[in-house]
């Protein structure tokens, strides 16, 4: 057992935790947290890949490291958009349930514009 294997397995377990939250927790905010948790796990695996690629005097392969940075920014952007949607949904309806859409198909006519 070395550090890379340890962190790699940790990344996998964290991803699993995130997946569970994403699937099973009904609150969208918690799903968002779980998504970020899942992302963290995946990035950690990428970090392990980078670390394994240490060479040429570098502590790790810089390419995956750079990709993780980009990935973190994209995940943040996603979180920001989702939070804005959630907040507005809450202000409008007082709830943030996702599984109500199934009933909405029978809602009265839309005024499409």
């Amino acid at each position, binding site marked *: 057992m070395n*550090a890379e*294997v*340890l*962190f790699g*397995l*940790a990344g*996998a*377990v*964290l*991803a*699993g*935790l*995130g*997946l569970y*939250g994403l*699937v*099973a*927790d*009904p*609150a969208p*905010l*918690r799903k968002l*947290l779980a998504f*970020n*948790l899942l992302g*963290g796990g995946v*990035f950690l*695996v990428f*970090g392990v890949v*980078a*670390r394994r*690629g*240490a*060479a*040429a005097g*570098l*502590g*790790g*392969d810089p*390419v995956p*490291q*750079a*990709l*993780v*940075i*980009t990935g*973190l*920014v994209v*995940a943040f*952007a996603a*979180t*920001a*958009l989702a*939070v*804005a*949607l959630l*907040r507005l949904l809450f202000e409008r309806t*007082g709830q*943030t349930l996702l*599984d109500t859409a199934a009933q909405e198909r029978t809602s009265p006519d839309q005024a499409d514009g």
Partner: protein
Amino acid sequence: MTMGLLLDFFLVILALAAGWWTIGAKDSFGAAVAFVAYGLVLALIWVRIAAPDVALTEAAIGAGLTGGMLIGASTRLESAKQATRAGGVTRRLAIALSALVAAALALAVLGLPHPPPSLAAAAMAALPPTGLGNPVTGVLLAYRAVDTLLEKVVLILALLGTWSLAPDRLWGGRPGRKERRNAASPLTLLGQVLPPIGIVIGLHILWVGANEPGGAFQGGTILAAMWMLAVMAGLVDVPAISRTWLRLLVVAGPGLFLIVGLAGFVVAGGFLAYPPGFAKPLILLVEVVLTLSVAAILLLLLAGPPEREPPR
């Protein structure tokens, strides 16, 4: 077992505990707090696996911005009607399948080849023409510059999406509520003292990014944080989203990046290629402007959609 490995074990246990807490916490607020802790532990792990650039980003974005945003959301949505918890069967299935996928991922990680493939040597070999010392910056601003450019566009789209949620009549107005300035509040003091220091640190991180860990995004995050602090202290207000200078600030970074890239067609024989000898100054210029744009975008993303009447 070496000390280092012991420390790694400890970090892993901390990360798993924070992750567990994020999923299992009773209320959203607790979960969001746990997530911030999770981000900070991850940042430490990134240091441990020799990725200080990522560590900085994880701390700034993963723990700081994302965490802060989610904590804010959890307090806002506190009174939201809660859905009933998933049924037992669903949860058992979710546990089983998530565990299987995690196991598959673990299996895949264990199956990675020896010796591992790496672009480290190639990245270092290509670095001298750029004049940079930090290969991560080389990847972000030169080898894979288009990813970075598109990532900025992603940020702008997220901003546009956030703004699009405003009511029509408030379009063009200022986001958030006006913070009252309270001279006696410690926040005001912080808001007055910290930003100058923060700006210096931010610019420093940006500057050293060329050769040391750091760079546009990390620097921009710190600038945005300082700006936010000043906003929260009521010292400055978030600008109205219709302001031309604000729009210009937001697109300046990616815009300049794109212009430099297109100029590469003419002067360096290719899109996003830098002319020999001018690579480093050009990259630094792009980075400075990108930092400012990133700071503006992050602030605006934190501030949310416009909530006040637009200026007439």
